[in-house]
């Protein structure tokens, strides 16, 4: 039962959609569903600290039950990720099941399974969108973060999709200090495959927390990125993730607010529901789809989401002239850098975030998720950013995410 608090403000009539979003929706618009924590890669900045499968993963039947619920809730589409979703043996079945039950699928992949046959299958399937993750326009820049061989894997998948006549597939880039100078090259690369470019913000989530200081764009780079988006952003998607840059001037297209628990949420591989895929932490855990009432009950009635759907205090930020443009930035970025949620974003373009970071208690540790599914040993195609030696790929055909790991 939902307790209706008499003091909760009434939802306004009409007005801007952005105001309606703050009060919540009957179903999420941009629901993310991480199908597995297993992954063939070990990217240094992985938002979900993926690598090893969690033994409590939802079964095929449980996943189908979630899809049935999403259909009843009339969710338009679901964003499937992981880990690497295609390493689940039932991935292709679940894809067809979703599409067959009126739920579109957009999935994010490193391309490992997208051979010619799968590319052709996808090109024939309606209501499915694909995006290939790539974090460098060259193998050198990309593989430092995603692992040796990952650039080749991704571009091979892009070539297969292009040859199969797939429409509207995307390349998705996490913008870092190392690749922000390659934006034009990314555009050229994606154009060459007939794909669309997406660039998204790097958050200090998951393993990203360990490399954020080193990899997040500098203030100067943020200004360059903003200028690039204004000049070249037509046709470049941003995942609505750069709204904190809107405080630099003209607002970027998209919804300029944090949608966690209001417009978006995450279903993780074990059925836990978090406010956002960048907030996998018990503070943002709303419930589990295995609980009575399933996902719908969590989305509509959880305490956490009710809190997020009451008007948020912008705190100190409300006094800033740019608050309406940036709305205080990204909740996950603040949380995982140890900043208060009612204060500036760590990358606040006015510099208030840097001030806040410097003011943090140096003895306090920043929050860490209770979950870490990272590979525990070296992985074939190890990222080299952190100076670890690359492990040579010995068995190309061995695709098991557990390959190469010491037992226990």
């Amino acid at each position: 039962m939902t307790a209706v608090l008499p003091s909760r403000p009434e939802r306004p009539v009409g007005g801007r959609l952005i105001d309606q979003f703050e009060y919540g929706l009957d179903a999420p618009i941009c629901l993310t569903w991480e199908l597995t924590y297993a992954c063939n890669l070990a990217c240094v900045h992985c938002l979900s600290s993926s690598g090893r499968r969690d033994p409590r993963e939802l079964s095929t039947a449980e996943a189908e039950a979630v899809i049935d619920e999403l259909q009843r809730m009339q969710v338009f589409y679901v964003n499937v990720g992981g880990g690497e979703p295609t390493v689940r043996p039932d991935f292709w079945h679940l894809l067809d099941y979703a599409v067959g039950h009126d739920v579109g699928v957009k999935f994010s992949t490193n391309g490992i399974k997208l051979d010619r046959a799968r590319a052709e299958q996808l090109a024939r399937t309606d209501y499915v969108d694909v995006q290939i993750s790539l974090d460098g326009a060259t193998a050198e820049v990309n593989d430092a973060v995603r692992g040796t061989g990952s650039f080749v894997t991704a571009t091979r998948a892009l070539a297969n999709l292009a040859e199969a006549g797939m429409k509207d597939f995307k390349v998705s880039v996490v913008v870092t200090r190392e690749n922000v100078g390659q934006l034009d090259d990314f555009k050229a690369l994606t154009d060459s495959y007939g794909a669309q470019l997406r660039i998204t913000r790097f958050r200090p989530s998951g393993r990203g927390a360990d490399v954020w200081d080193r990899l997040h764009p500098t203030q100067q780079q943020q200004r360059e990125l903003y200028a690039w988006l204004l000049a070249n952003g037509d046709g470049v998607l941003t995942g609505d993730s750069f709204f904190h840059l809107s405080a630099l001037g003209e607002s970027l297209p998209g919804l300029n607010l944090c949608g966690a628990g209001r417009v978006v949420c995450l279903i993780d591989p074990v059925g836990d529901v978090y406010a956002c895929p960048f907030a996998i932490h018990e503070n943002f855990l709303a419930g589990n789809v295995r609980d009575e009432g399933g996902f719908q009950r969590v989305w509509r009635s959880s305490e956490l989401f009710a809190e997020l759907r009451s008007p948020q205090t912008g705190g100190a930020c409300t006094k800033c002239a740019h608050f309406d443009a940036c709305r205080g930035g990204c909740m996950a970025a603040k949380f995982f850098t140890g900043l208060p949620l009612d204060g500036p974003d760590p990358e606040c373009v006015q510099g208030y975030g840097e001030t806040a970071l410097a003011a943090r208690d140096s003895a306090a540790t920043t929050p860490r998720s209770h979950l870490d599914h990272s590979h525990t040993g070296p992985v074939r195609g190890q990222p080299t950013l952190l100076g670890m030696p690359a492990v040579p790929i010995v068995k190309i055909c061995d695709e098991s995410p557990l390959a190469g790991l010491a037992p226990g």
Partner: protein
Amino acid sequence: MTPGFDPDVPWQRARSVALRPEPFGALAYHFGNRTLSFLKSQTLVTVVESLAEHPTARAAIEAGVPEGQRPAYLKALADLARTQMIEVRSS
């Protein structure tokens, strides 16, 4: 009248569009062009869903909307036509 929108022919919600009621009206998602629109009143949702049952869009509006508001609803349908959320039907 917005050029391109003829309210005196038969219309219907586009077949590639899903419409989901919300407390504030509805969200409409076009699976073909991936655009999302926000319909700000329940009355507009009712008009859109009833288009297929009327000989013209104008008739659908006249059936469901008080006279003083009809221009706003005509404009709303023109907006929806422009983003292909509604389409002309053959009969």
